[in-house]
């Protein structure tokens, strides 16, 4: 039997190729990003929830003056900015995976992901602008 009759199956563990453009490790990096961002979010998000909801009267003491006091410090500005970006990218990537799992038609997957990416851009841009342009003396 000649080798020409061997079935056309790739050797195990060869990477998937995409069209003629070569390889992509996107899913590997996204998997890794979920774990690294998750570890950082533990401190940022649980710290945020503790300060805002539990400590010192919790949500009852929050108002404009409270926000102005916090954002006068670069420490909390950086904290909130990092939390915004990491949570949005981590949660958005998680939702991308969920859409891929459940939306079976190509067109529904495309539309759901278009809506997801649009909402991520909206939230990232709005949130970043709010932190950078905050004005304690507004109106």
């Amino acid at each position, binding site marked *: 039997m000649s080798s020409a009759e061997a079935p056309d199956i790739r050797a195990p563990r060869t990477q998937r190729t995409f069209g003629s453009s070569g390889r992509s490790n996107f899913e590997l990096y996204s998997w890794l990003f979920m*774990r690294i961002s*998750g*570890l950082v*979010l*533990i401190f940022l*998000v*649980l710290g945020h*929830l503790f300060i805002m*909801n*539990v*400590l010192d*009267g*919790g*949500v*009852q003491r*929050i*108002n*404009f*003056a409270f*926000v102005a006091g916090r954002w006068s410090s670069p420490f909390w500005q950086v904290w909130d900015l990092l939390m*915004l970006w990491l*949570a*949005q990218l981590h*949660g*958005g990537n*998680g*939702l991308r995976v*969920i859409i891929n799992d459940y939306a079976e038609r190509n067109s529904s997957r495309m539309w759901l992901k278009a809506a997801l990416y649009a*909402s991520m851009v909206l*939230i990232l841009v*709005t*949130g970043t*602008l*709010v932190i950078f*342009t*905050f*004005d304690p003396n*507004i*109106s």
Partner: protein
Amino acid sequence: MPTAPAGTLYRGREGMWSWVAHRITGALTFFFLFAHVLDTALVRVSPEAYDTVIATYKNPVVNLLEVGLVGAVLYHALNGVRVILIDFWSKGPKYQQAMLWSIVAVWMLLMIPGVYFMLEHTVSAVFGGS
């Protein structure tokens, strides 16, 4: 004679349910984050606009929903650590079930005082007291 396949529904016990809960809490948190960034953006409109929207967070019913959200995020965070340990720690898969019960215990330990402080004001406002 070949028989029809037995039931093929995957029943992964605790491991499967911990994953289902991780997925639901993650998606829930993401949707809340959408609303939360937009309500916070009202600090760029006026102090009054912001204080008005923040007042809804202080409403007793919404306050109860916040306890649910904190519980969901806390579960997601603790189980996230468990998932990371299963992936990267050589003994992780062996202890995955023990780790699940451990994070449930940690969740309870943190939530009991947490719920107390989160609801302290609401309980005294709704049920009176001095």
